[in-house]
């Protein structure tokens, strides 16, 4: 009886359950998910039409970079909001504590949910990107082997922030309402003029965005970047992720000491 040996073979079931739930909710409530795509698309069109009108040739020359930067910002924003607000929503629904009582532990379940949500967001962002390309008539030369690792490592730092904010929302559930404000900070981070300002590269998204812009604009391949530059990207990604996870664990321990884990 029981589930003593469930964990070993159970990670697959855990991931599958989370994927199935995301899909089911998406299919059952498509307006919610597609609403996000339409919003991002509308916002891009404002940027695109405004830039073409007033930016002239300079805008046209940097359009590829703008498109990929916008894609990264959209991905980061939606992933962060989803991860950060997930805990508050689960607490509201009354399901948060059930996710704690699993053989995997709360942190692993939340990490799995975050990864699955981000993949879902990436697919929607991909659709949005395709529509953007159709609207602008642009053709992106995407080197998958370069772009995917850069995007994943850039998003790792966003995951870290998401975990930290998620941890804070374990303690202060209403904080989730304020998380969308972070998207404005992300605009600055994705578009930061990082060249020549070393300390800016320590901020999340900045270095990854810079490398992505270079990859898109100058056709630099992953292995053509300086080793130091790639190491910095890995260090910021992993560093923020580990630090964010540590904040999350610390917050959930504090919440359990104070008996407020499931409160809303």
């Amino acid at each position: 009886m029981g589930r003593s040996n469930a964990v070993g073979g159970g990670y697959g079931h855990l991931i599958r359950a989370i994927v199935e739930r995301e899909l089911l909710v998406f299919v059952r409530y498509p307006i919610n998910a597609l609403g996000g795509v339409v919003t991002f698309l509308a916002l891009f069109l404002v940027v695109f039409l405004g830039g073409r009108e007033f930016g002239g040739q300079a805008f046209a020359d940097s359009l590829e970079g703008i498109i990929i930067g916008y894609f990264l910002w959209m991905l980061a924003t939606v992933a962060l909001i989803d991860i950060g607000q997930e805990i508050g929503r689960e607490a509201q629904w009354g399901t948060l504590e059930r996710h704690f009582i699993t053989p995997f532990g709360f942190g692993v379940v939340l990490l799995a949910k975050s990864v699955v949500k981000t993949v879902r967001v990436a697919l929607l962002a991909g659709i949005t990107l395709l529509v953007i390309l159709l609207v602008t008539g642009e053709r992106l030369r995407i080197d998958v082997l370069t772009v995917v690792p850069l995007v994943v490592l850039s998003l790792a730092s966003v995951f870290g922030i998401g975990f930290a904010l998620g941890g804070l929302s374990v303690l202060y559930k209403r904080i989730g309402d304020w998380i969308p404000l972070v998207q404005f900070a992300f605009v600055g981070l994705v578009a930061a003029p990082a060249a020549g300002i070393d300390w800016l590269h320590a901020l999340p998204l900045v270095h990854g965005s810079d490398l992505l812009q270079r990859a898109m604009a100058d056709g630099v391949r992953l292995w053509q970047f300086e080793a130091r530059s790639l190491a910095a990207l890995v260090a910021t990604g992993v560093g923020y992720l580990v630090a964010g996870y540590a904040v999350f664990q610390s917050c959930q321990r504090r919440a359990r000491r104070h008996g407020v884990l499931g409160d809303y």
Partner: protein
Amino acid sequence: MTTEPPTAVDADEGDRPRGSRDAESATEASPALVVDGLTKRFGSGDDAVTAVDDVSFAIDSGSVVGLLGPNGAGKTTAIKSILGLVVPDSGSVSIDGIDARESPHAAHGRVDAMLEGARNDYWRLTVRENLRYFASISGADPSAASDRHEELLEQLDLAAQGDEVVRNLSRGMKQKVSLASVLASDASVVFLDEPTLGLDIESSLTLRSELRRIVAERELTVIVSSHDMSVIEDVCDRVIVMQDGRVVADETVSELLDSFETQEYRIVARGLEGTAVAAIREAFPDADVTETGDRVRVTLPATSSEFYRLVARLEAENARIDSVDSGTPDMEAAFLELTGGGDR
């Protein structure tokens, strides 16, 4: 019934709760759950509140135990401390022999809980999807469990609603879905907080009998917290009563009812002289003796030997005994007796 504190079953037990089965004695039977010296305080200094105060008990595998107590008695904090949702200040919890402090994930992976009543599931998923989801996140293979899930839906009279989105169901149905999703997870120890809340009488009765059947079939260990004493009486083998953070009684349901049944006798007699009444008052100082006209009513909180001594004394005084009543206690009366009449 009087509102005196309960008498200890065994004089040697001192401050221990009635009939307590502590961790030491239960270890031999390898129980499903052992709680030893669990203590939790909130706040500090003068504002500190001891929510759970040195609570110990052990629950054998396959049994159903009721956890009762007035509001603020510490039931929820105790349950959440056992589940790891609250970190206790001291004490230990062992689930299926696994120390929850040393191996929290392994220990807490053995349990599941219905803590939020009908708010325990995803309302945007169907009933079957919820069962599948919560079984999966507990590490079970949902495909292998699908037959058992169907059986659960049948047992809880939910089969017709299996493909319905939970948000469209009634409050009572949601409550049953919540229970089903907890039982779907293949946990060996299950905590149910108010499992019949919101159910109509028929559904409540069905659920009680099915719960007993499921427990017997799966050797499930269940801890039930409920305001409905009839649920506790029907479903539970044993009752743990908490008050002010402490366990004040820990007995089987029948022991608890029996002990209260023999604890108080009410005798109505006639034909007693004033001096005889005074003599009875003196001989039985714990008795409550009231006179109404020529009737004398004696209420005696006592053992059966005290009762027979009183009857003998009344006969010796040539009294005519009109009635003897030991009352018919139920869980409600026993609970009120133990906790001094607080709300649950």
